[in-house]
Every structure is written in C-alpha cells, then in structure tokens.
C-alpha cells in the first residue's frame, strides 16, 4: 500500500508527518507544476473549477509514480467540491489507473464514521499493528507540524513588508519550513519552530515603514495554495503590504470538528453575521465569509481587500457580484482576481502593483 494526497499549501508537510510517524508508506506527488495543471486540464471539462483540475493532476502524477491509495478530504453540498471524488474516480478509471479511495469525512457524524469504517476495511488488513498503534501519535505530530507551519507563515506575512532585501523573507520562510518538515520528534519540532521564528525575526528590517493592511478573502483553495494564486500573498508582501487571511487549515479543521469555540471559528461567526447586510441566506462554501470579512475589515480600518476565486466557482461568483457593491458602499478598494489555468503570473503582478499604487493615492489623499 502506498498512500498519496493532493497538494494544498503546506499540507504535504504535515500529511507526510502523519504517514511517516505511523510508518505508513506514502508517495508525495511532485510539486504542482505546469505539467500537473496540463494533465488536469486535459482530463476535465473546461468549466470545472481550477482546484478540481489541479487535484486531478496531482493524483494522476502520484498514481503514475506508483501510489495506489488516494486520501482526500470530503465535503458536502452545495459547492462542487463535495462531488469531486465522484467524478475524479470515473476519470481515473477511464484512464486505466488503479487506485483505492479513502475519504476523510467533512463532518464528524456516526454516518461518516461508519462509511469510513467500511472504506478502510480492506486497507486495515495491510496495516501492521505498529501502524495502527502509532496512528494517533502521527495525527498529533501532524497537528503540531501544521500549527508550526501556520505560525511561521503568519510571522512571514508580518515581517515581509518590512524586509530590506526583496525576497529575503520568502527564502528564510522556505528554509524554516524545511526544518519543520525534517523534524522527526516532538522536541526536534519545537527546536525547529524556535529556530525558524528566530530566522525570520532576525532578518534585516526597516521598521520605519507603515505597511498597508490588506485582507485576502475568497475560496479557500485559491487563498491557501501559493501555486494556484501565483503567490499573491508573497507579491503583496513584497509590495509593502501586510497581508491577513483567516483561511487556515486549523480554521477549517476546527470548523468541521465543530469546535467553534476557538478564536478563529468565532471570527467566522462574526463575518457571517456581517454578511447578512447583503446576503439573506447561507450561499455555501466561503461566499458569506468572503463578503462578511470584507465588511468587517473595512470597519477595522484595513486599506483594501483582495478577493480570490477560481473561474466559474459557483458560490464565489455570487460573492464577487456583491463585493463590488460592498466596496462602493464602504469605500474600501476590493480587487477580485479570477484564477484559471492560463499563464497569468505577469498579469497578476501588474494588477497587484496597480492596486497597491491606488492604496498609496488613497493614503496620501486622506
């Protein structure tokens, strides 16, 4: 058995940690590249959203490398994400690739646990007692690594606009993340995190700058994965913007575990309430949160909002229509960036530069 999973931001670091700690063999799909995307586009319909194509590309590449078991998060209605597996399974079957599929239930319920139990029946036979015994420890280790990655990324978002040598933060962040990735034990992980934090903080910084504050909102896959959004977070940071986002793995995991007491989850409740000024119903996925967050950020005095969505995304299309209006009503610049498979890195750079320039005018006028 060789397990594989799709790429999404720094997810591979902690998925790997789970598999490694529990001693389960795995294959890490090659980093998402033009080739991954081409494979995904080739084997799907043009109007399917970008995450579908990239995840499909990841799976194809991993299966070709010898993986045989796909682990994928499930989701529910009303967005298309909930039916990705239905369609991807048929596509892989049609391509003649062999696989087994394991869905991580989107919500913890008895029905989901039962389904999971059925799905893993075969798989468990291949696992040794050691694998099963160490699995909870693996999960714990994965969680720790995930939190470490998030801490580092958040710190990077803070220091990036202050960097004196352009691109330095990104270099240091990469190094710090690789330390986290390499850590095998809990104490080594703590050491890696401490060192990583120090590495970022010790960077040469210009503290006289007053960075713009911009919130990134939108569909979670495009917000969280730097390959898909062509590094919007990094690009904005290097233009002198302190970026905030509320879409993190921990937010979404806690949300699906119904642990809404955590700070970030309650923040989502606040966003949802704010969105009611424009939307009379929960449209699904991140739509209401995107709108609500834009409203809340405008009240908090943020300079702007960047809204990311894949082309033809159903809930975010509704959000983008409403966000145009929110921007006008609340006098906050909102930039919607629609992402698809086209090579648009240069265009995004230009868009962001123009956006930041506009923020500068606005600040000067005030």
């Amino acid at each position, binding site marked *: 058995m060789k397990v594989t999973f799709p790429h999404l931001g720094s997810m591979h670091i902690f998925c790997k940690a789970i598999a490694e700690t529990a001693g389960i063999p795995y294959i890490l799909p090659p980093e998402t590249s033009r080739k991954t995307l081409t494979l995904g586009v080739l084997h799907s319909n043009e109007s399917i959203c970008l995450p579908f194509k990239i995840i499909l590309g990841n799976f194809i590449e991993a299966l070709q490398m010898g993986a045989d078991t796909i682990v994928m998060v499930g989701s529910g209605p*009303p967005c298309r994400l909930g039916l990705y*597996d239905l*369609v991807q399974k*048929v596509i892989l079957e049609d391509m003649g690739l062999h696989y087994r599929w394991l869905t991580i239930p989107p919500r913890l319920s008895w029905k989901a646990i039962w389904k999971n139990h059925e799905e893993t029946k075969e798989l468990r036979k291949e696992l040794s007692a050691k694998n099963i015994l160490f699995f909870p420890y693996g999960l714990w280790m994965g969680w720790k690594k995930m939190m470490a990655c998030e801490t580092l990324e958040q710190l990077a978002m803070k220091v990036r606009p202050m960097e004196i040598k352009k691109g330095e933060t990104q270099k240091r962040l990469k190094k710090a993340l690789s330390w986290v990735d390499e850590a095998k034990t809990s104490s080594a992980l703590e050491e890696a995190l401490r060192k990583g934090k120090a590495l970022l903080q010790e960077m040469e910084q210009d503290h006289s700058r007053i960075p713009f504050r911009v919130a990134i909102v939108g569909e979670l896959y495009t917000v969280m994965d730097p390959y898909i959004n062509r590094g919007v977070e990094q690009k904005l940071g290097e233009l002198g913007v302190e970026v905030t986002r509320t879409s993190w793995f921990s937010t979404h995991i806690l949300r699906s575990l119904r642990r809404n007491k955590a700070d970030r989850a309650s923040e989502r409740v606040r966003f949802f309430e704010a969105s009611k000024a424009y939307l*009379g119903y929960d449209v699904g996925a991140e739509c209401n949160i995107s709108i609500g967050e834009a409203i809340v950020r405008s009240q908090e005095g943020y300079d702007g909002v960047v809204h990311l969505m894949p082309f033809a*995304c159903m*809930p975010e299309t509704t959000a983008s229509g409403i966000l145009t209006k929110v921007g006008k009503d609340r006098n906050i610049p909102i930039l919607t960036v629609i992402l698809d498979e086209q090579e648009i890195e240069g265009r995004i750079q230009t868009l962001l530069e123009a956006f930041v320039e506009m923020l500068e005018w606005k600040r000067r006028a005030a």
Partner: protein
Amino acid sequence: MEEKGCIGIPRALMFYRYSPLWRAFFEGLGWRVMVSEGVRQKEKIIYFEDSCLPMKLLVTHAVQLKDQVDHLFIPRLVSIHRTYIMCPKFRGAPDIVRLATEGNVSIIDETVDLRKGGIPLLRSFLKMGEKLGASRRESRRAFREAETSFSKFQKDWVDRINRVPTRQLFEMDVPTPQTKNYTQKVPPPLAPARRTSSLAGGGGEAFRFSSSLGGNPTAGVCKDEKPPLRIAFVGHPYNLFDIDINKDLLALAKSLGMEIMTSDLLSEKEIDREVSGLSKEIYWSSGREIVGSLFHFLSGGVDGVVFLTSFKCGIDALLQEFIKRRLKVRGGSSIPLLILSFDEHTGREGLTTRLEAFRDVVEERKNSKSEAPACA
C-alpha cells in the same frame, strides 16, 4: 375582486417550471401578474455579475420589470425536493437582483426549502401571502387552487411541448391542441400562434420563426410518411425552454421532424434507479434529474439524446464530464448523444447546422438498424 397591485415575475430560471403555480397563486390573491418580455438581443443583457447566462438573464428581466410593478417575485429556491438542493447561485439570486435594481423595488424573496418538515411549500406561500397583506385563509385557498391548476397544467405537459410554440408554453390561456385534431387536420398551430403574436406585441424574430414553422407542414407530413424521430432533450428547464438561451432549439427540432421527449416523462423512480448506485449521492436535484434521465434515455427507448447546457454552469460542467466518462467506462451507448453549450454569443445558424447533422446521424442509424438489425 378589486385589483391590489402588480407583481412582476422575471421570465427566467425556474419560471420555466413553476410559473403556472406562481401566477395562479398571486392572481388568486387578487394581484395582477406581469411577466417580463424576452430579451432577444444580446446587447440588452445586463452584466451585473460574471455568472452563467441564465443568471444574467434573471437580472436583465428583473431590471426590465422594476419600474412597472409593485413587487418583484424572486423566490429564494434553496431546495425544491425533499432531499436534494438547488444550485448555490439560487440562494443568492434575490440579493443579486436587489443590488442590481438598487433597492428601488420591493422584492418578495421568501425562502423555499422543501427539505424541512411539515408542508414547507405551503408555509412559504403563506408567508408570501402575509407579506402581501392576505389572511392565512385567503393564502391557503389561493395556494390550493394554484396547486390544482398547476397539476392540471402538468398533465398534458409533454404533448404541450410538442404542439405549442415554445414562447407560449407557459401561457395558461393557450390550450394544448388535442391529438386528434393534430394528426388529422394538418397544420393547426397557425391560428393560436397568430393570436399571441398580437398579445405579445409582435414577439420578435424568434417568435416569427416558430410561427412560420407552425405553418410548415413538415410535422404533419412526417407523421404520414415515416414516424418522427424520438429525441430526448435533457437539461435544466430554463435551458430547454428559454428561447433567449437556446434560440428556440425546440422549434428547430420540431421542424426537423423530431418528437421532443423530456425528463418530465420519467418518474422519480426511473431517474433514481440510474443514479442510486453511485459512489456518492448527487445532491443537486436538477443534477440528479439530468444524469438520471440521460442514462435512462441512453439505455434505450429513444433515437437520440440532446443535452443542453449553459456555459459556466457549474453543475453541468462537472456532471457532463461524469456522464461522458461513465458512458465510456461502461462500454458506451449506441444512441447518439449531442451536447450543446449555450452562451450569449450562440447563433441560430450554428445550432441549425449541428442539429441537422445530428438528425442525419440519428436517421442513418435508424435506417441501418431497420435494414440489418445485427449491425446495431
């Protein structure tokens, strides 16, 4: 009863399934109902958001109506089935329209969610009645009457599709011609066609197109000489019946000697049978209907299948891939399948060519089958 005011219903989205019910309800409460005209020219479409064509048409129709009516009726259709849901865009539709009309008009946006217990549809309508100042008793009565007339309307629906021009399908006062008249006296549709042309104030080019088809004796001739081709048209109701989306494809099909069949012919059980064994349940009611009926029709009983979809429709894009792949994996189907995708740039000429070619394929297959059944 004295008239209380005017309610505008945009001729878009689920108008193409439920308008008889909605209209009867509001009229039963003593309101005048105004339905928007067609859009016809793509220059008139309002691009408020970057959505699928049906959604853009909803906004366009609503803006057309906003100054002429007291209330706009845009229900928030969350679910129109007791288990399954609608596309998420329907949930935000009233809000989008509210922003597009700049809040100038009152919008009746009652949520319809049939997954809830009790009689949720009645409850939604009672709330709408309440908003319009009707008592519960009045609303209840109007709803019951509307329901009765709606089920009567649905009864001869499939005959109606084949015998009434697309534009008039949802006009309750246009009767469905009886079968006998239809086959014996050759082209009957001319008379009723002319009548609404004056009603609709010269319904425009597309309408003349269909009425000239009514005068075209092909349909009658076909009946005599050879049986019509039985073609199943599958898709969201608005893709099927909105001539602003499909350029009156149905009239074109009729003129090519096709008998139109839709998923309305199938019972829920027949559809469920096709989609129940899937690894994951399709949770959109329209998606289920489309996938189920496509598989049903492709397994036999018809000569050809046409799947109509709008560009950027999320549900169709995903399920279309699923349908194609699954058919391939299961060894394909001998019944020809044509997939037509519409957007505002779709022209009638291109559609005509494709449909004619499709007709030839279907006919060829049918002829070769009747000559040498072994080939098929």
